[in-house]
């Protein structure tokens, strides 16, 4: 029997396989990777009756144009995404996120673009046929780890899908609106006191613009210069996703999934876990504001985030 696969007719800008990320390897320099927007990754999987740990295809801004070969699948797309299905008889259907569709051999899926966000997710019933590396399906393009030799997809490549002939998937759909709020809640960083009083105040009061120098590694911001009165370098130490670090030029950088595991810039703050999906989805050109919360508040906000994610997952199942 021939293998079922999606042929890539247009790769999109940054199309990779991702899952919930890679653990226990920071100490050798391998970062977490994984879906930038974990909730949307999980919802995409749930909509095609997959476990949330299955890999999905993540794309940024412009998505891929894909043609299904040798089979029949259900797929779902999540995020704030415009897409259409071009049936093999040339009929065109407008697609809606957060519901599943049937795709048949030689049908095309044209993921046109994300709208007021950066990342979108595609999952297929049965799941993609990838091998795990260090217990994760996530692509790490820096060290070329993960499916497709750890690289972004290019035109002409194939994404293989596990065979699942007898799988019958119910129609599944939910109403979900992506949050676009630009207030980012943070905890003070371990070097907060390296900055002048004036800069500490400005960090929480002024707006910061997300610049074009933004990718899966991090988000460079521009705004009031944060004046370091102690030292613009610290002895290199571990980093985590969400750290807001400030290099000598005084412009903050928010570290995201593919960040370096060690760094020597002072940390003024750390984005709370509950806001990480949302911050990753804010496109360049957006102005954001930081708000300080306490550790207890951050922990409670994460509980709310998780229970809301579960509420939607349960609504699908």
């Amino acid at each position, binding site marked *: 029997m021939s293998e079922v696969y999606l042929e890539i007719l247009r790769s999109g800008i940054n199309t990779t396989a991702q899952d919930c990320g890679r*653990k*226990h*390897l*920071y*100490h*050798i*320099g*391998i970062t*977490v990777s994984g879906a930038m927007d974990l909730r949307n990754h999980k919802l995409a999987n749930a909509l095609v009756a997959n476990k949330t740990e299955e890999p999905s295809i993540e794309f940024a801004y412009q998505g891929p144009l894909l043609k299904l070969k040798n089979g029949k699948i259900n797929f779902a797309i999540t995020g704030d995404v415009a897409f259409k299905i071009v049936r093999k008889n040339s009929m065109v259907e407008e697609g809606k996120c957060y519901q599943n569709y049937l795709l048949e051999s030689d049908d095309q899926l044209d993921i046109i673009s994300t709208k007021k966000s950066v990342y979108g997710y595609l999952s297929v019933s049965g799941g993609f046929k990838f091998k795990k*590396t*260090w217990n994760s399906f996530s692509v*790490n393009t*820096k*060290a*070329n*780890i993960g499916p497709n030799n750890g690289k972004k997809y290019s035109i002409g490549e194939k994404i293989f899908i596990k065979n699942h002939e007898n799988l019958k998937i119910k129609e599944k759909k939910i109403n979900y609106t992506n949050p676009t709020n630009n207030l980012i809640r943070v*905890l003070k*960083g*371990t070097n907060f006191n390296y900055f002048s009083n004036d800069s500490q105040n400005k960090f929480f009061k002024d707006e910061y613009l997300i610049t074009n120098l933004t990718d899966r590694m991090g988000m460079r911001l521009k705004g009031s210069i944060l004046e370091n009165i102690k030292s613009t370098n610290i*002895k*290199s*130490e*571990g*980093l*985590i996703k*969400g*750290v807001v670090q400030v290099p000598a030029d005084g412009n903050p950088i928010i570290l995201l999934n593919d960040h*370096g*595991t*060690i*760094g020597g810039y002072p*940390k003024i703050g*750390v*984005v*709370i*876990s509950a806001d990480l999906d949302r911050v990753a989805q804010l496109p360049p050109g957006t102005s954001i504001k930081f708000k300080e919360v306490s*550790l207890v508040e*951050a*922990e409670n906000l*994460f509980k709310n985030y*998780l229970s809301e994610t579960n509420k939607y997952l349960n609504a699908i199942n």
Partner: protein
Amino acid sequence: MIKNISNLGDAAIYCDFGTEVNETINSEVIKYFNYLSDVIKERKIEGITNLTPSYNKLIISFDLGITNFSNIKKKIENLKIEDSKKQSSKKVKIPVCCDDKYGLDFKRLSEKLSLPKEEILKLYLDKEYFCYMTGFIAGMPFLGDLDKNIRCDRLETPRVKVPKGSVGITEQFANIYTFESPGGWNVIGSTPKKIFKKENINDPVLIKPGDKVIFYEITNEEYLNWNE
């Protein structure tokens, strides 16, 4: 000994072992790291997702859906670290070619240090280095300490792309760029040796914290014909 424990965000713990960089403090960090790695394997503490040892800090990341700061902090404070397991440490020899096409920053270094290239190289090759940590990019070792006469600041403007294999120096430290990467260290040569091998699933990194490293010079011809 951990001097202070604080939170780094809501899903990590920041263990501070001091501000100085030396083998004694670093060995303390590595001792905790090794002990905690075993604890995680034996599932004695749930929810830890990563351990990041560095010169004098240890960051413990955890899954906030499973545990939280005060839980993990209590467990770390109550740990009785046994010193029974001696750290395994090995000596690694790294070939480097320092021809001008690889040693991109000799001119800058010569000017800043007022030393000829030959002298810088001699002092660099004449030493056995200690690996403090690995990271930033996969497998990159942070080695020390350089001879006092060849210590120099980072480049004012970091390179967008440092070629894979480059060996660099800055302040008291030496490193190896295991992958092409942005970077601001002074590049003095390149090694053809593979430091990170993803094929070796169980042991992908050649140089580990606690290991000793010696650099030796090779010709460009040896570099180009390098075969492992």
